[in-house]
């Protein structure tokens, strides 16, 4: 009787994405298993100025937050636009994927994704310049994320030099 129709159980907002952490210690199967059980979310596209307090206020709407780890520039040790949010239960994290992912925090549309679990070292950006990889290569100007991308910044400096 408790017939559940697959077609009606759609819950795509909580699906695991295509992203896999290249630094993950273990094989793909293990990583996927952890992603499917995880209570931890990666949160991206934050402003560099977004605080732990703001993240907490938003994500606490989905349940009790166990901890928040703000992502840091590896060299400067300042916030570099991402964080991890860990809940006590997976159900609460699923609600964050359903209702917070794709909405705004600090005026920016943020993106949440399942994370296999925080490990020491994962709070640092992996870009060459110390921030996130995406900030190395982007071409646009984003005042909340340090202005131009790092590569674009270098080109600009070169350009200025060449003009003179």
């Amino acid at each position, binding site marked *: *009787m408790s*017939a*559940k*129709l*697959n*077609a*009606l159980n*759609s*819950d*795509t*907002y*909580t*699906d695991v*994405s*295509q992203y896999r952490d290249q630094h993950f210690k273990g094989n793909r199967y293990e990583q996927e298993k952890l992603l499917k059980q995880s209570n931890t979310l990666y949160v991206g596209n934050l402003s560099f100025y977004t*605080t*732990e*307090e*703001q993240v*907490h*206020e*938003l994500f606490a*709407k*989905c349940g*009790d937050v166990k*901890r*928040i*780890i*703000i992502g840091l520039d590896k060299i400067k040790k300042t916030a570099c636009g991402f964080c991890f949010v860990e809940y006590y239960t997976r159900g609460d994290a699923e*609600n964050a994927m*359903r*209702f*917070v*992912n*794709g*909405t*705004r*925090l*600090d*005026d920016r549309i943020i*993106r949440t994704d399942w994370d296999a679990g925080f490990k020491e070292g994962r709070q640092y950006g992996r870009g060459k310049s110390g921030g996130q990889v995406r900030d190395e290569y982007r071409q646009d100007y984003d005042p909340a994320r340090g202005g131009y991308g790092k590569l674009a910044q270098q080109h600009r400096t070169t350009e200025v030099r060449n003009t003179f």
Partner: protein
Amino acid sequence: MSRRRHSDENDGGQAHKRRRTSEPIEIEDRLESLICRVGEKSTSSLESNLEGLAGVLEADLPNYKNKILRILCAVARLLPEKLTVYTTLVGLLNARNYNFGGEFVEAMIRQLKETLKNNLYNEAVYLVRFLSDLVNCHVIAAPSMVAMFENFVSVTQEEDVPQVRSDWFVYVVLSCLPWVGKELYEKKDVEMDRLLSQVEGYLKRRVKTHVPMLQVWTAEKPHPQEEYLDCLWAQIQKLKKDRWQERHILRPYIAFDSVLCEALQHNLPPFTPPGHMPDAQYPIPRVIFRMFDYTDAPEGPVMPGSHSVERFVIEENLHCIIKTHWKERKTCAAQLLSYPGKNKIPLNYHIVEVIFGELFQLPSPPHLDVMYTALLIELCKLQPGSLPQVLAQATEMLYMRLDTMNTTCIDRLINWFSHHLSNFQFRWSWDDWADCLSVDLEKPKPKFVKEVLEKSMRLSYHQRIVDIVPTTFSALIPAEPIFTYKYMDESSSSLPGYPASITVGNAIKNRATNEEILAILKEVPNPNQEDDDDEGESFNPLKIDVFLQTLLHLAAKSFSHSFSALGKFHEILKALTDSDEGKLHILKVVYDVWRNHPQMIAVLVDKMVRTQIVDCAAVANWLFSQDMAHEFTRLYIWEILHSTIRKMNKHVQKIQKELEEAKDKLEKQQHKRRDSGDDEDMDKNSEDEEGQLEEQIERLQEKVESAQSEQKNLFLVIFQRFIMLLTEHLVRCETGGIDISTPWYKNCIERLQQIFLMHHVTIQQYMGTLENLLFTAELDHHILAVYQQFCALQL
């Protein structure tokens, strides 16, 4: 194929991978998909899609009959918003295959019995409604449906059963009549009249003590907040007066009338409602939320009146759509906006009303609050030219009626509005609300604005709030959330704790050990004692003050810093808070230093409860203490209290679960032993294991009892405090000859209500104690009324 980006193309997630091979599973999935999707947007008409699908299914009956039965039964239960689409489908199948029709009806009856047995009363309503619409499709004979209704209504004659039981049976019958009233009256008007007269009698004798507790507004104007059965009865009365003419429901079966009326009908087997069981959980009563009428939607189609059956059907269907699609907000928004018949009604108004109705529902919304915020944002995205305006209009109306709005509902409005604004750059016409500045700031309107600004600040930052409101609103702007350090600088050097604060501060900065710090603290004089206590162990408020103020000051930078500090010095904090006075004082100090940052207070208290530096009762006592009286009406106080109660509840549940698991393990172990035969060694090991498990169970049993005792005590403390505060106020007003209804009183009495409503499941267990110890007849009737209304929810 180009690499897919995770954009808005899909609703949030991945497209399903297509399987290459055609297996039975594949065909079953296809059948499910075909059936579930019929009625959705299509290039062909609904009628031709139904015709086509009926043909396909008829052809598949020889091989997949059971599967098809199962799917159809499931959609009847799970897709009530598409009721008439599926009854038409069943009608077509019955016309082509009489036996299948009969088997389907039998399967539905079986399913109905199962859902009732499993306390799934809401789903059972949809099943009965489906059966009743099958009368319209010539699948079920009208007289047998009337007979079922007669059996349902006869439940009202039962004695010594909870009112909510007979309520449900009456509700089911009434709620089917919009669909099938006409047909049943045409065939069996005498019986139907008798039925309705029985219902009328029942509704007149019903007890309605519970209603005030469930109303969103206490005012009857502009829209009465009607009890759900009263409203439905009025709607059915009106429908009857209109000779059962109902024009809103989409009825695809009408197009197939020539085919369907050739079909043979089945009789419903006689259905006796299952008897009342003590563990039955009938749905609790509701109040119908209304905030709009036809005057509010000035242009376009007219909004059906509050007692029109159209209003009932529209609201039912919109609620069902939300229930089906709440997990996928884009789909949910799209489905709501493509409601069939939307051109004849002011759909945006209905949608906004239904959504707020759910958000404000008492005791609690059907879904998580934040779902509604996300859904409204999606709706605004899909209808940017019309929905935001309706939403703004709604917000304005809600603001205007704040004076009579239930405090719990105001809380939810605050949270929704601030979160919503944070997604739209906090754009709002604050000046429109300038009227709130000229009244006592404790009144609901300025209080609301103040709380909204505070929550908005939490999602942004102080300067932002200063920038977004007119300067006239400065009295309502929250304080800057900065630390208040008593031992700041030389100007505080005369304070008794000042020297110690410097020493302790330096010790912490130089990574002194706990022993060293405790030694420093031992030297702190105790203002509560004349001479030195030999042990220096008794409660010394100054010690706590100096240590905690200094520690939290050093860790003030962020939540993480403060949590880290609490963790690092857990040992010291535990030692300092050994007594109840110590626990109370630590909370006092936390408030002292962070009084401008309620969010920080909340997270610190949470951490301290979780790490057992303070216990739940201490938090309750602190919140109700005289020191916190001036904060008593602020939202954050109640968020802390409810969070604390929830932690207590989860703690009890956790241990109960451990106990159940241990018991299960023991049972399995015992079965294993019984089945394993005569192996002596195995026996011995088994016995040992069992012995260990039994010990563990005993320990867990004690733990559960102790936790439950703590939980009961927490509620007792809270209720006792409420009673004391309220009684004091009532007596003072009486002797002074002043009106009891101050803003403080309204807040306090509704906060008491809120405790009952938010934790009713847990409180049920302790009703006996509460009634004997606290909510006795000697209590002031204002306070007792709250308790009685709560009890009435379960009748």
